[in-house]
């Protein structure tokens, strides 16, 4: 620490200052010093925000575990731990380069693998930027876990996770955000607005989740022989609720942090993020109340997430009042979307497809409609192109990836294993050995 505190102070002061003794203070040296201090604030904010987004991993893990059965909790924690861990390494080695490297025709990055853009002593900004982008990539990856819960082979999941972090997410991301670093994407070229990633992160995750849920098929017991829907209640609602609070907190890094600069913009982004989440949870609650006769919690929790996902794209370009509207609409959409996918026999235990896929698309469209700078057919058109491009790229590719895994190492566990629970069969463990746990819904 010693070593570095000194160095710390040294760097903390404008470089020029280091030799203040000799160097005369000039207008220019002061200006340089000011810019250095501002850049320190930018680093601080970008990295703190990255930390908050990292914490969302815990939120996703808790929501998924809480909304599924006790016998699969260990498996869920492992998947969430691993898609962040593996995702970090893969994005370091491959993903970042494909997303932000010098671009081939706006379609794919070609440089910056293994963080080669950083050279000791060189400008460390690439490191701060990488960190922020890495947690975004992991978010996209982990969204899928929930939709595939309770029936996916662990090894198969790991291969999917690598595929998404290495290829599916980064390449699409480069189309929309490449120019944030060395790249330049065709989509951003058209003027596509997706400030913090309703489409780039959430829809990519959501559509991949849809592919996964379809390829897997529903859990045993989710539908009765005579085709009726059979709810499979989540085993720990307080944990799920805690997960949503953690995600909400993380979003205060996700959206405002996407400035990657400490400036005054973050205030409005912060407020918009909060108001949309609030409106989303309220409207989802009301909708569930009207439709089911009671204010149902899992829908209300999903509603908050729906509002957050929806505001992710427009958060920096719409007014607080618009944010409330955008979030509220998302809160209604998510309820009907969950029911819809359940009806068409896409078994998504946590509602990932509806929350991230559908509401991500809605938010991206909303960014065009509610744009403070005014909207136009062309602006909305470009947003629609972005939404379509995301689905057209992600869904088929993910579908193929899952099919491939299915045909090779296998994607779904056996009926026996599924009924016994993945904790025991995949990990040889028991999440709650001191409690008598059982779930009768096993087909």
């Amino acid at each position, binding site marked *: 620490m010693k070593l570095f505190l000194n160095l710390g102070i040294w760097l903390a002061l404008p470089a020029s200052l280091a030799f203040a003794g000799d160097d005369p203070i000039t207008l220019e040296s002061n200006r340089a010093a000011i810019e250095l201090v501002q850049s320190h604030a930018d680093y601080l904010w970008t990295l703190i925000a990255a930390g908050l987004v990292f914490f969302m991993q815990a939120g996703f893990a808790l929501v998924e575990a809480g909304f599924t059965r006790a016998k699969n909790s260990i498996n869920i924690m492992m998947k969430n731990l691993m898609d962040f861990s593996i995702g970090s390494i893969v994005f370091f080695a491959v993903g970042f380069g494909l997303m932000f490297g010098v671009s081939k025709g706006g379609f794919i990055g070609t440089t910056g693998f293994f963080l080669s853009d950083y050279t000791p002593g060189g400008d460390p900004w690439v490191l701060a930027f990488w960190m922020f982008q890495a947690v975004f990539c992991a978010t996209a990856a982990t969204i899928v876990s929930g939709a595939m819960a309770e029936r996916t082979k662990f090894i198969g999941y790991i291969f999917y996770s690598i595929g998404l972090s290495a290829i599916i997410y980064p390449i699409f991301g480069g189309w929309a955000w490449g120019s944030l670093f060395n790249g330049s994407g065709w989509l951003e070229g058209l003027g596509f607005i997706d400030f913090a990633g309703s489409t780039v992160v959430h829809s990519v995750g959501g559509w991949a989740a849809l592919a996964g849920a379809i390829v897997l098929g529903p859990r045993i017991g989710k539908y009765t022989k005579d085709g009726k*829907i*059979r*709810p*499979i*209640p*989540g085993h720990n609602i307080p944990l799920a609720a805690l997960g949503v609070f953690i995600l909400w907190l993380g979003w205060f890094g996700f959206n405002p942090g996407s400035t990657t600069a400490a400036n005054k913009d973050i205030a409005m982004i912060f407020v918009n993020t909060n108001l949309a989440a609030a409106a989303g949870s309220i409207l989802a609650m009301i909708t*569930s109340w009207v*439709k*089911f*006769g*009671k204010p*149902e919690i*899992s*829908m209300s929790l999903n509603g908050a997430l729906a509002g957050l996902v929806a505001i992710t794209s427009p958060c920096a370009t719409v007014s607080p009042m618009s944010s409330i509207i955008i979030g509220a609409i998302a809160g209604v959409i998510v*309820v009907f979307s*969950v*029911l819809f996918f*359940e009806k068409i026999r896409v078994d998504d235990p946590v*509602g990932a497809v509806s929350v991230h896929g559908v509401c991500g698309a809605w938010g991206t469209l909303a960014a065009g409609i509610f744009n403070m700078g005014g909207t136009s057919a062309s602006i909305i058109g470009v947003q629609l192109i972005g939404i379509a491009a995301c689905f057209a790229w992600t869904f088929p590719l993910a579908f193929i990836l899952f099919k491939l895994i299915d045909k090779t190492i296998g994607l779904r566990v056996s009926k026996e294993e599924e009924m016994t629970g993945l904790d025991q069969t995949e990990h040889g463990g028991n999440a709650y050995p001191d409690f008598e746990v059982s779930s009768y819904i096993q087909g």
Partner: protein
Amino acid sequence: MKKIEAIIKPFRLDDVKEKLTTLGINGMTVSEVKGFGRQKGHQEIYRGAEYQVDFVSKVKVEVVVEDSKVESALKTIIGVAATGKIGDGKIFVIPVESAVRIRTGENGESAL
């Protein structure tokens, strides 16, 4: 000796226990059970799907007593466990051939 198995509503347990003690019944064994019967359970909603939960949580009280005490024990339990509402539960009387106190090896009624 008989074993009295009473399936009652959980929140009646305290009183049942208390009253039995006054009869000089020094011990009993209790467990949580799920009951199915006329009392038809309730609806739950989860993520928009309604479903019927048939089972009602009940408590099973098992008490082994000498034959002479069976009658009074039954009366007592009925007395305190009855709320008059469907789902109050049942009492079953089952023959017990012998009882042993593990600590002492004592046999028969003295083991209770």
